[in-house]
């Protein structure tokens, strides 16, 4: 129980927290815009990881192209999925949404299995690790965190300063009023959904640089993203980032002082306590 372990735990927790926050942000934007929970998040995170991995195998000099390709593919994939499937789900009962997105998950997972085999993969980039006393910091994690922070700032800037962002915020606040003001809801939904999917893909591509991944490995990350979204208030990207950091730190503490395997259970416990004590989340106002 030394001070070094404590510091190391906190640093590791914050690093993974940015990833959780990013994955959660993808979910929360989609929910905010169209009140649909993207239950295919797990498969999409893994798909983002594989796209990054694939790019890297063709151009194994830098991690940047993989991330850019993953983001681009994520955006196009989001538009495709919206136009083919999600468009039909708006206003449908929850059960319909759940089952359709589950069907999508099985299609994606099976496709990934055929394309990349069930073996776990990872992006073997050689990042150096620096040690300061007993604390060691891997530059891959620093890189991943910086990318996550940049992406978050970009999204928030788009939300705050551009017309598109203002329109999305308007739809999140009041869909009917936005429609009456002449907002093309279908276009906002398309872009909002693909923005969410893009962030999910980005989370996957970044994750691939720190952790190994496999076609069916998405569920634990998806569940973590759900916890983050609930804790940080559904539909609130800033709250999501904070909740991501909190959950990341808790994850790291459970791993250091108990066993990492129990970390999901602790996270779900936090989620249930949140539901009971503060169902609107940390950042939400009381209804």
């Amino acid at each position, binding site marked *: 129980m030394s001070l070094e372990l404590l510091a190391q735990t906190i640093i590791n927790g914050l690093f993974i927290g940015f990833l959780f926050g990013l994955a959660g942000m993808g979910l929360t934007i989609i929910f905010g815009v169209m009140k649909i929970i993207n239950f295919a998040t797990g498969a999409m995170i893994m798909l983002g990881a594989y796209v990054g991995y694939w790019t890297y195998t063709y151009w194994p000099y830098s991690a940047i192209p993989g991330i850019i390709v993953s983001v681009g593919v994520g955006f196009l994939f989001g538009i495709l999925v919206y136009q083919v499937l999600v468009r039909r789900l708006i206003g449908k009962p929850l059960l319909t949404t*759940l089952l359709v997105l*589950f*069907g999508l998950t099985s*299609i994606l997972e*099976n496709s990934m299995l055929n394309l990349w085999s069930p073996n776990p993969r990872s992006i073997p980039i050689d990042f150096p690790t620096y040690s300061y006393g007993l604390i060691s910091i891997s530059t891959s994690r620093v890189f991943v965190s910086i990318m996550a922070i940049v992406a978050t700032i970009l999204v928030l800037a788009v939300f705050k300063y551009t017309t598109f962002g203002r329109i999305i915020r308007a739809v999140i606040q009041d869909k009917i009023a936005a429609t009456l003001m002449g907002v093309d809801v279908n276009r906002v939904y398309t872009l909002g959904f693909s923005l969410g999917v893009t962030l999910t893909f980005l989370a996957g591509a970044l994750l691939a640089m720190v952790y190994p991944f496999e076609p069916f490995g998405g569920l634990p990350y998806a*569940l973590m993203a759900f916890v983050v979204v*609930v804790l940080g208030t559904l539909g609130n990207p800033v709250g999501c980032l904070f909740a991501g950091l909190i959950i990341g730190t808790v994850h790291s503490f459970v791993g250091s002082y108990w*066993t990492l395997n129990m970390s999901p259970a602790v996270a779900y416990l936090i989620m249930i306590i949140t539901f009971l004590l503060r169902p609107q989340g940390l950042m939400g106002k009381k209804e």
Partner: protein
Amino acid sequence: MAMQVLRTGLTGINSLTISLGFLTVIGILGLTADTATTGYLHAMVELMILAYSLNLFTGLSGYANFGHVVFYGLGAYTVSVVAVSLASMGFALPTFMYIIFAGIFAATFALVIGYPVLRLRGDYFAIATLGINEAVRVTICNTPWLGEGRGIYILGLVPTYDIKALYIQLLVIAFAVVITSYLVLKTKLGYGLRAIKDDEDVAEMMGVNTAKYKRIAYALGAFFAGLAGGVVTLQFACSFPEYFFIGRSVDMFVSIVLGGTGTVLGPMIGATLYWMVKDHLLISFPYFHLIIFGTILIILVLFFPGGIIGLLNRFLKKKGRVLE
């Protein structure tokens, strides 16, 4: 569907007789056939029971209980824990007693977690149930006296390798769950649950005790899922964390949606058809079956939301009759 009977004056077809008759046929088929066929039908009847148990709560009230498989897994673990601890004291019970223990434990667990979880609605409820299932699975995987990832083996503590005897017990549970579903559908509880599905706030305003109704149906569904889990432990003589696999929940969901949610006949038709189709796809297209299955699921849910019962009713209504 029964609402339609009330509103439109259509004659309801007696689904209970059809369901029980169908079950009897499957039962006789399984008891007279060779062991392989019995095993196949055994798994099918098990899925039927699970589909009915999900239908009792989710089908009627519209709450998406995605973590329903947790009761199945807990039932399975109850049997092995009870068997092992009784054996250490030198006792052994008749097998059906273990199964009843499994059901009671699952129902008790449902009552306890139902207190916080049933206060949630919509997406929150779905996420919470999913989370509870994972939390229970992860906790079991990390608890030494529950066997961690290895599971608990009860080989030699209970009579094993007697698939026909287990099949009879499974059939008894299946008959019970069909009759229970029919009774729930036809009593105040069923009408209350369907009112909750339509609009919970209005139902509460009209004097439906929504909290109580939801809790009863939730525990009832958990009880039958626990019974099915108990049988599966006796069948394989062990219980391991794979019983909490979320794909099992999906099997149940697809079954009730395929057949028609909230009906008496639906889960049976859905489970039978789904089991046969899934088995066939798995054998014919081992590398693509999930793609085909996912596509079928999406088409089914988007374009035939009433399931097979809904399709049949389109034709039957013209003749003034309706299936329920």
